[in-house]
């Protein structure tokens, strides 16, 4: 039966790229933190050496994530209302508190992680020493007792951090999952899918950041780190597998749900073929999964980098397909809604991405990234190395 609307009003897609990017950033923050907590919290020795890289990445990504939301508000000056009100029925209201608790916990955790090396760095003099001196707040005790206390506190705050990381990204799944008006979003799987894809993209970005940090701080990737990266790539393979299985379950149930659900599935499969099947699930999941199946490929750094980049792109496509794609199906009328990113949104996204990279670079270059047995190279000033 043909239905033609010859009069209707135009509606807009209000949640655009900044919202998708917010989900993307918090996801990668949670993913990289959970991955690197394997050492300090779960006691897997080999991951201890990358805990510092992971936690800095988690903190910076999480600091920049909510800025996307702030810039997206129609009344950004009123964001304080979020802190003065609690609405238990709103997933967004839950998130406000998680978005404070999680980074605060991570900052305390990382302080204990860096303390010993910052005290050791005081002797070097210059900007770094005064910066460490400021960050240490006078706690310069490096007796065995104090160091044991550091370890205990790392474990304590790391242990808080893991559930907080799960919650801070899980709740974003509820933001979409709780909306019954839109079939694409309204599924109990949404928080779990968000978490698994966060693990995938968090791991992917972490591998790349780890390589860059190692390269610039220590001059080269030693075999130790290469072996660890292969291990992480192996984990990434499993994360992709679980994420892929969840996506398949999600899609099958969507296909067999009510008409809106079936239409949503059809929409993803046909109208959004290139971004859903091609980019999100093909290039972003299937290709890196196949690449990482081979042990040889996992030991080849260029292939691991390629797979990591593909997962990062794939999960970005997934966030966009879900957030924006979910709003493309109309609630009234008879036209698929079009989304056009505004110049302002694109400026905000690019500006925040550049700012996040600058802050990350700054922190990685000034903070002591020493790990047991490996010292930062001293001959070339680190800041210069990064600038190249």
């Amino acid at each position, binding site marked *: *039966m*043909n*239905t*033609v*609307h*010859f*009069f*209707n*009003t*135009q*509606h*807009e897609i*209000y*949640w655009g790229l900044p919202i998708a990017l917010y989900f993307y950033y918090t996801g990668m923050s949670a993913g990289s933190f959970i991955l690197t907590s394997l050492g300090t919290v779960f006691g897997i020795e080999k991951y201890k050496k990358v805990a510092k890289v992971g936690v800095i990445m988690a903190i910076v990504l999480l600091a920049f994530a909510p800025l996307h*939301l702030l810039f*997206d*508000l*129609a*009344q*950004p000056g*009123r*964001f304080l*209302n*979020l802190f003065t*009100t609690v*609405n238990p*029925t*709103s*997933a*967004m*209201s839950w998130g*406000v508190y998680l978005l404070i608790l999680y980074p605060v916990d991570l900052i305390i955790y990382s302080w204990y992680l860096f303390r010993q090396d910052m005290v050791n760095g005081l002797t070097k003099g210059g900007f770094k020493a005064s910066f460490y001196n400021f960050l240490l707040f006078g706690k310069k005790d490096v007796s065995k007792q104090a160091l044991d206390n550091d370890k205990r506190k790392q474990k304590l705050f790391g242990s808080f951090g893991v559930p907080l990381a799960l919650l801070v990204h899980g709740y974003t799944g509820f*933001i979409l999952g*709780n*909306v*019954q*008006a*839109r079939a694409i979003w309204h599924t109990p799987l949404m928080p779990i899918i968000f978490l698994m894809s966060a693990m995938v993209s968090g791991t992917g970005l972490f591998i790349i950041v780890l390589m860059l940090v190692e390269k610039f701080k220590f001059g080269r990737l030693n075999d130790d780190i290469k072996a660890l990266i292969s291990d992480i790539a192996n984990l990434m393979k499993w994360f992709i597998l679980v994420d892929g299985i969840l996506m398949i379950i999600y899609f099958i149930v969507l296909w067999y749900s*009510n*008409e*809106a659900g*079936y*239409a*949503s599935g*059809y*929409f993803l499969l*046909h*109208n959004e073929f290139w971004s859903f099947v091609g980019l999100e699930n093909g290039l972003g999941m299937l290709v890196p999964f196949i690449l990482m199946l081979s042990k040889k490929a996992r030991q080849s750094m260029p292939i691991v980098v390629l797979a990591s980049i593909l997962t990062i792109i794939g999960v970005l496509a997934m966030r966009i397909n879900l957030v924006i794609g979910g*709003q493309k*199906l*109309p*609630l*009234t*009328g*008879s*036209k*698929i809604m079009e989304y056009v990113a505004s110049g302002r949104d694109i400026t905000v996204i690019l500006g925040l991405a550049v700012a996040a990279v600058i802050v990350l670079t700054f922190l990685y270059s000034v903070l002591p990234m020493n790990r047991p047995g490996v010292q930062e190279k001293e001959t070339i000033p680190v800041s210069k190395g990064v600038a190249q």
Partner: protein
Amino acid sequence: MGKRYAMVIDLRRCVGCHACQVACKSENNVPLGVFRTWVEELETGKFPNVSRHRLPRLCNHCENPSCLNVCPVKATYQLEDGTVLVDYDRCIGCKYCIAACPYDARFINPERNTAEKCTYCHERVDAGLQPACVNTCITGARVFGDLNDPTSEVAKLVATNAITVSKPETNNRPQTYYIKADEKALRPNLLEIVTGGEK
């Protein structure tokens, strides 16, 4: 029992003049490009077997409004009489309510920069008047009143007619009742939209 305001839209009477849409714009100073109420018009079938349908839409002032549930700052609130309102001084403009409303009833007012929607012309109703759309309707297709008062016209219409609401499955429990509305108008035919009408 307190009041429960509701609207009945009798499509046997609606002629599609859009006067309600205009009256609302004028009464509430609604900026260009956005609408608190609007009338969808559609045609179904293939010549010679065709029919035309109209569907005036507005906020359903639901009993369990999604918009109210998702608002992180409680800017959306519900009065005792069922009217769902937005506190324009609290709203931060996060647009969650717009994403969550199944009826496209909400929008961002481009001048005030907050979420906005139909208020049942709350200030008019308070003063004992009818909402502007009801007041202006030339055929009396829009009827507004207290559903809990059995002698009110809305209560009588709801009790004595076959009525439908838009998307009852969402548990919003909408309070805009339609008489003789076409199912094809009440919800978008998503399957037809995504397949381009092939299936």
